[in-house]
């Protein structure tokens, strides 16, 4: 069975935190992809760039064109509103994380009890 769809769904909810957390200093698109990938958060340019554009439209981030070695480059930076959103998202994420950790530990203790009781893995 292919579970990829579920993994993608799970990741979709976290992408905003990952991206916004790295835009507290001005960063350009490709650099952002590199930072995220180097830190284990795999993301493709084709996913990230349109997302940045949407966030810019919603004024969650701001952008600025700068000339770097005779070439224009677009830098992104989180806006004041985006900062507020990021703080809220992180808080929600931590709450969810705590809840899930509790639920997972209950599941594990259930399995241990089952093993003690029956002598076999569930």
């Amino acid at each position: 069975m292919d579970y990829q769809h579920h993994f993608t769904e799970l990741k979709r909810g976290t992408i905003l935190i990952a991206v916004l957390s790295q835009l507290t200093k001005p960063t350009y698109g490709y650099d952002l992809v590199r930072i995220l990938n180097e830190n284990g958060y795999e993301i493709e340019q084709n996913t990230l760039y349109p997302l940045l554009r949407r966030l810019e439209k919603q004024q969650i981030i701001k952008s600025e064109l700068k000339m770097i070695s005779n070439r224009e480059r677009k830098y992104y930076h989180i806006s004041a509103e985006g900062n507020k959103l990021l703080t809220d998202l992180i808080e929600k994420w931590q709450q969810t994380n705590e809840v899930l950790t509790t639920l997972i530990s209950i599941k594990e203790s259930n399995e241990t009890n089952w093993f003690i009781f029956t002598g076999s893995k569930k």
Partner: protein
Amino acid sequence: MKLIDLYLQEVKSNLYMENKKAILVEISDTIYEQLEGDLSIENVSSVLNQMGDPRLVANNYNTTKKYLIGPDIFDSYLYALILGSKLAFIISLLIVLMLSVTTTFASIFVAGVQPLLAINTVLQIIIDWQLFSLVGMTILYVVFERLDNPQEYIQSVEDINFENAKKLLLKAIGKIDEAAQNAESKEKTYETGFSETDFEENSNQYQYQYRRKTSIFGFIIKVIGAALIIAFYSFQLNIPDAGINNQYILNQDLRTVIVYYLAILLIFNFLILIFKLIYGRMNMPVTIVDYIKDCFELIAFTTLTLTYGLFPIFTNFLNANYPTLDKQLILQIMIGVGLVINTIVMTKNIIYLGNKNSRNN
């Protein structure tokens, strides 16, 4: 660097967002970053391959859907069309067989006396079913295109194939178990003759040059095709045996016109396809897909509008309110409307190709 410029132009021509410049700056910057100063053809080709099909790159930025059936699902659409065509052919043959036995027209018994009547009926049934399948699949994929996650639906269409049918049959009669069935690797192939590897391995400078040349070829073919269609429309088509049910002779004429029209378009498209398969297969999958897409959009739209939409409604309305009115005149007007629609769509394509060519030059 010409190759990068061509790539960016290709992206630009498929963007319909505001502020294209900012998007192109970003894509261009990403390309140069990945090149890391090495501007050799090999490195540029490799980076552009990594970036992917420029149409898909552009499509990621386009927040509203412009395509009737977009590039993401178009390969699957072609697969579904071929599948639908095969199924429709089998069904139509069964119907022909049944009619040959149960009715007088199209029967093998009248074929010697009235061969045109028999052939016409058989061909009409086959073409009608092909048309149903074409329109049905097109509508289905138009709906898929507008879904958030069409892949799972597409997969279910792609799973309909002879191999799977065989497996299901074997499983039903107990000759194969599910474990063995799952163990087999599932390889997805399309019958378009191309694969993503073809595109990736051959995405070099020649691809873009060749594409430009064949766009001019496509342009000439479209002009000839349009001229032929106009010529056919201009003549009064009159096939003596075409009207099986005389009371619907008007519809019959219209159908004949549409069938001719479709036949011309399809013949031209297949000629182009064969030409491209022989001379440019490896270098230009995108263009073939582009071109066939245009044609199928055109066919589906015209067929739906004329045959199943406007004409029956108008005829009923006229019969009810103006029974003495010349229906032949109305038919001509309807054909005229179809012609105008075709001309507009073709002109749009021609202008588009013209722009692309001048940019590439």
